[in-house]
């Protein structure tokens, strides 16, 4: 069945088009003018000149926590890889020379193209070796393979600002837990 829709005929003001076009652009123009006149009230950030404020508990790029001697805390148990729903963590374990440490990763790759940033790996880690508190959210690489972050990349995170009062935290290097370990292991404390 065909239903005929009768449209209201336009009057001459509407048929002029100019006023109707301006009416359609009203919201856009309003925000454009707001950006020109009252810039500081805009809810958006002019990326990339200004970077958005990312909270510390945001699940951003991973980092590997370090031992006092600079080796990763990771014991290559594979819990993160087992918990990972995207299967983006690849770990190869090896024995270490250090008599205090039995097992260490020889390879620890996270594929950030596959990662879904769910944070389950961080929760699964029994030794708090993996964290996602780097606040780094942009990933720009020329090649696909570069998105796979190897162990070295995950270890070399420079904490520009990190809360010192966090007793659990280990600003790499430093932190209270590391201090204890340094004392117990008889290593030089800096």
């Amino acid at each position, binding site marked *: 069945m065909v239903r005929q829709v009768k449209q209201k005929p336009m009057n001459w003001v509407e048929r002029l088009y100019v006023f109707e076009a301006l009416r359609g652009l009203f919201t856009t123009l309003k925000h454009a003018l707001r950006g020109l006149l009252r810039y500081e009230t805009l809810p958006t950030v002019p990326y990339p000149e200004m970077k958005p404020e990312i909270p510390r508990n945001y699940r951003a790029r991973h980092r590997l926590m370090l031992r006092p001697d600079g080796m990763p805390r990771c014991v290559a148990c594979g*819990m993160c890889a087992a918990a990972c729903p995207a299967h983006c963590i690849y770990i190869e374990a*090896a024995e270490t020379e250090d008599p*205090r440490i039995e097992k260490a990763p020889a390879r620890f790759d996270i594929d950030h193209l596959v990662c879904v940033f769910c944070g389950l790996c961080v929760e699964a880690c*029994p030794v708090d070796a993996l964290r996602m508190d780097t606040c780094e959210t942009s990933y720009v690489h020329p090649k696909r393979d570069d998105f796979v972050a190897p162990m070295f990349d995950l270890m070399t995170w420079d904490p520009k600002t990190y809360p010192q009062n966090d007793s659990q935290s280990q600003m790499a290097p430093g932190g209270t837990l590391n201090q204890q370990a340094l004392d117990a292991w008889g290593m030089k404390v800096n």
Partner: protein
Amino acid sequence: MPKLPTENSPKVEIFVDDKAVMVPGDTNLLEALKAVGIETPHVCYHPYLPVSGNCRQCLVEQEGPRGRMLVIACYTPVSPGMKIYTPASSERVKSARKATQEFMLVNHPLDCPICDKAGECTLQENYMEAGQNESRMRPEYGKNYHGNPAHQFIDSKGQVRGGKRVDIGPRIVLDEERCVQCDRCVRFMRSIAGDEQLQLASRADHTYITTFPGEKLDHEYDLCVTDICPTGAMTGKHFRFQKRVWLLSRTPSISMDDSLGANIWIDHAEGKVWRLMPRCNPEVNRSWLSNTSRLAYQNFLKDRMPAGDVAPIKQTLAKEGKVALVAGGSCTIEDLAALKLLAEKLGERAEIFTGSFAPVLAADGIAKSGDPVANRAGMKLLGLPAGNLEELLKRVSEFSVLLSVHCDLFENENAAKILGAIPEKIALSAFNNATVKASTVALGVNHWSEVQGTMVNCNGMLQKLSAAPVSPDAELRPAFSVLAELAETPLSCACEAFALAKKMANVLSAYSYETIRSTGVMLDGVQL
């Protein structure tokens, strides 16, 4: 050794949780309860080791003259009419097992994340079954290791630790901390291996496993102690930190390097074999596997032959003169049937030889018969000569073409000199071995770990191999498929080849891959 229930065990009536059940009457309580589906957690008990009864994990309550008392199920023989109470009805059994479990874990380190046994650990299983205690460990005490004083140290938390990665032998690493002193390994070396190399030293919580001073744990079966160890105390160096066990898939198969045909699990992941584990078969290898068979997997992917075209082999076979078809020891029944098919196709020109130049050794009575020709009984079954390579060497001048299947003839220098006289040599081989190098035409085929098939072991037991998905090249084919194509009657799958073998040996006709049990079937009335 505990007496295990068999199909012929007399049935007796006992009362489990006040319910009458029929159980095998000639065994211990633990096995009897298992036969009716009641699992009892245990650590030191092993069906193929003498009962030691030291872990006290398998406690049940038995009604006795002085009322109900706790007994260990592994050392209590079944008697008719006995009354047994399991945790299903008895709170006392439940708490006793829980206490035992807690006691066992008091100084057991929290190594599960880095322990190779995690995932197949008896302690983990028992914890889920009988433990689940809240930790009562006070942090100011921590774990205290009292074992071998030579290996004690204080860790960063101030706990007394010790005995991590003790190099106890060429193939095994011992972690004394993880040991729960079940003494399974000691009993294995004493009773099964017959070479008492391990000992429990010291007493009470100072007990630790050690070898004699200056000696190492070194035996053909020493890697079996890593299987029977209920914790991660004994770990094999070959598999140490290689792969978490829950990532491995298992394929049941047969070790084709010995005519006993030890039952194995092929543990594979990512298209690669990571380890071979013994698969329990009471009538063949029980729970044991020799180091040679177990470590054979390390060469499965080394120096493999690529897949190729069959046409050059066809052309070579079409040449004038007699053809010697040689089947090696790891040929399955299917391969042999296809080889026989090829011999029939070639008619008078062809003659089949089988065997290996490797010496036949004495059986060790554990998991090896000493005969390197694994499927010798299968060869006899199909009416092939079983081991007549000497004859081939004598009559080498008669032949102008030599086709070897899974058989490294040229490894033996003497044989290589004599066989070199044959002008055309064809090799169907998984590996790029001496025979392939000496041959004029060679083609890669699947290794036995990658094929489905059957074999008959030296006791006349028909066992089946399953194909693990570990072939390095999808183009590779099993030897029977290549041989059948050469015989111009292509076989598309192993079951067709087995159907062919059924026609050649009547005794096989009763079986199919579905009816051969995972532990094999004994062939009746077979003269071996």
